[in-house]
């Protein structure tokens, strides 16, 4: 009888420690969907860049018209907004199912720590666009997004850390192949999101 209580105590200690330090309602499925949006976005970006009549040059070295840049910016923004909205909605759903609040101390901490590297990266990205230095845009975006994931992973499911490390690696490799930004963006934001999101969904959500 006593033993069972001790075991329960230990279980409760462990549960409370992770519940109070990590936001566990992050939805893996939203990662998969974000990856799919990114791939669809990459497809449209590919069409915009390489089949736009105003574009000249070959695959790895080309000159993009201003019109195409605006179009790419619009595609990227739509993918971003859709991904964030999906992430929030599915996490709210997951939190409701496990009777957790979506906006609590742990999710606040997660968002703040995710936003710090991401905001710096966003600033650097805009700076590069303003200076019309597009070659380093994708590596930089991948690296800062990866750093944001690694930083945020302490406050949520551990898989996010590996997503971040993969993004950083892709970003660094991309610096050796600067003309292939779109391909690396599709690999990172598309394939990696689908892979890790799928893994998280498989591990934490599917069983229920």
């Amino acid at each position, binding site marked *: 009888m006593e*033993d069972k209580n001790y075991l329960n*105590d230990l279980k409760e*200690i*462990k549960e*409370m*420690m992770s*519940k109070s330090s990590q936001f566990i309602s992050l939805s893996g499925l939203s990662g998969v969907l974000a990856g799919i949006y990114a791939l669809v976005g990459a497809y449209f970006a590919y069409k915009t860049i390489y089949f736009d009549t105003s574009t000249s040059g070959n695959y790895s070295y080309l000159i993009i018209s201003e019109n195409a840049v605006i179009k790419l910016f619009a595609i990227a923004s739509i993918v971003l907004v859709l991904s964030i909205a999906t992430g929030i909605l599915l996490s709210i759903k997951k939190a409701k199912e496990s009777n957790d609040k979506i906006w609590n*101390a742990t999710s606040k901490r997660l968002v703040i720590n995710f936003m710090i590297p991401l905001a710096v990266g966003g600033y650097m990205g805009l700076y590069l666009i303003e200076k019309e230095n597009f070659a380093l845009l994708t590596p930089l975006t991948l690296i800062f997004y990866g750093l944001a994931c690694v930083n945020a992973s302490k406050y949520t499911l551990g898989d996010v850390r590996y997503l971040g490390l993969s993004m950083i690696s892709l970003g660094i490799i991309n610096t050796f192949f600067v003309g292939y930004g779109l391909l690396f963006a599709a690999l990172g934001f598309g394939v990696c999101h689908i892979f890790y999101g799928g893994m998280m969904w498989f591990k934490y959500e599917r069983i229920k």
Partner: protein
Amino acid sequence: MKNIIQNINKAFDHRIRLGIMSVLMVNESVDFNTMKEFLGATDGNLASHIKALEADAFISVEKQFIGKKPNTKYSITPIGKKAFQDHINALEKLLSQK
């Protein structure tokens, strides 16, 4: 065997107190409302357990105002940390002996 039992701390012999200590082990400081949310306890119940742990010097209390609202933050003391760690170790040892 007797040694282990001694390390089982009676002060932690309650779900809420166990919860408070667990939360404070992994968080630098936590305010009253957040603690309430984590543990799913009522105001009075939580306050009385906090008082008991404070009396044992296991947790420390910091009162401040955010605007006009009073805000009380709790954190674990070194004594509390050690006592709770001993408690966890004792629980684990007791279970592994079976």
